């Protein structure tokens, strides 16, 4: 009598192993792609934040260019497109004290997920 001792893996086992391996490899590749996307988004937001920061500084310079401060016609709500970033800035009406004005800069830009809006809010001294 011939004894068959066929050890080894069945087809099903092999397939399950392949599926598991594939899932693992895909997760690895996927996480790497995600990190790449996040870095890409960081690049866009870095640029946009600098556009907003530069706008605030520009408004500060304009606010300080007149005596009394904040009376320049250029110190007003407006919008522009700078380095591919669309920015809109809002100068609040004078506060009761007259010593400061609130300023918001809203930047709009594209990243991998679509349109992103970021708002930078600060106070410009007028006293």
């Amino acid at each position: 009598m011939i004894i068959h001792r066929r050890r080894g893996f069945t087809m099903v086992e092999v397939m399950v192993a392949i599926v598991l391996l594939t899932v693992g490899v895909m997760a690895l590749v996927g996480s790497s792609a995600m990190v790449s996307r996040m870095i890409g988004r960081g690049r866009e937001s870095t640029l946009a934040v600098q556009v907003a920061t530069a706008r605030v500084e520009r408004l500060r310079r304009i606010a300080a260019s007149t005596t009394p401060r904040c009376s320049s016609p250029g110190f007003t709500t407006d919008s522009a497109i700078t380095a591919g970033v669309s920015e809109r800035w809002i100068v609040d009406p004078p506060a009761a004290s007259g010593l400061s004005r609130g300023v918001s800069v809203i930047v709009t830009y594209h990243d991998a997920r679509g349109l992103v809006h970021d708002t930078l809010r600060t106070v410009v001294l007028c006293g």
Partner: protein
Amino acid sequence: MTSRRRGFTLVEMLVALVLVTAVVGVTYALLVQNQRVSRAQIEHAGLQDNVRTGALVVANELREIGYDSIPVSSGLAVSPSVSPDLLVMLSGRLEYKAMRGIGFTCTAPTASELRLQRTTVLGARQPQAGDSVTAHVESDSATATDDAWVHAVITSVGNGVCAGGSPAVSLQVAYSGAVGALAPAKMSVGGPVRYFEVMELRYYKSGGKSWLGSRSVSAGGVIEPMLGPLADSTAGVRGLTFTYLDRNGAPAVLPNDVREIAWTLKGVTGGAVRNAGTAALAVDSLALSTSVALRNTLR
């Protein structure tokens, strides 16, 4: 009869070998790819970090730049006169006075000495020889219109004693021009003294790469890289360009007219990396433009 030939046949062996080679090959390719992507990610993150730091650090360094103003009403002979904090204003280099701290006098100032109460001397570091100072001239304490800040250079720093006996930092100073003969008598005891280090920011080349370097001119230091690598001057946009704007946003000619400094910083990756959308390796760059409004107020 029992056949006891265990083991693999040659064919099985060959098939297994081919399969193992294929799997190892694919895994290795993935690993190499992953390593390359990871390196690119590190480089890109570093690049962003670099230009962001540049925007922040430069802004913080330059924000306090101003000028000393001596109004006519102060009664000082050299009025009106200004001593700007901005000393050199070029597109790739600037020299400026960076405030490093403040202290308050505790004895009557003389033409050669400002004695500061040690406990009031606060700042990023202690005053040093070579630093410049601006001392407050109070004159008539009933009005602010005759107040002035006058400029002097610290020739040496030593220890002293205040009028009340507490320890003091003694600054030996040299005033520029006729101010020295008139101003100290008009200063009040307890008046503020700010001290400044003359600093230089420069775009320069070292080791085949371009950098933003910083140097203390007061201390006679050598230029050291602050951040980089930046794009070379031969590449389309230069790695660093400063622009000086006056109160109306037009290019300023004189240091006293500067109200805003704008700059473009173009960082590059340390080496060739794989960039999004391309298979080829190339140096990636990121240009960032920003500006800072100077304080530039009377002080």
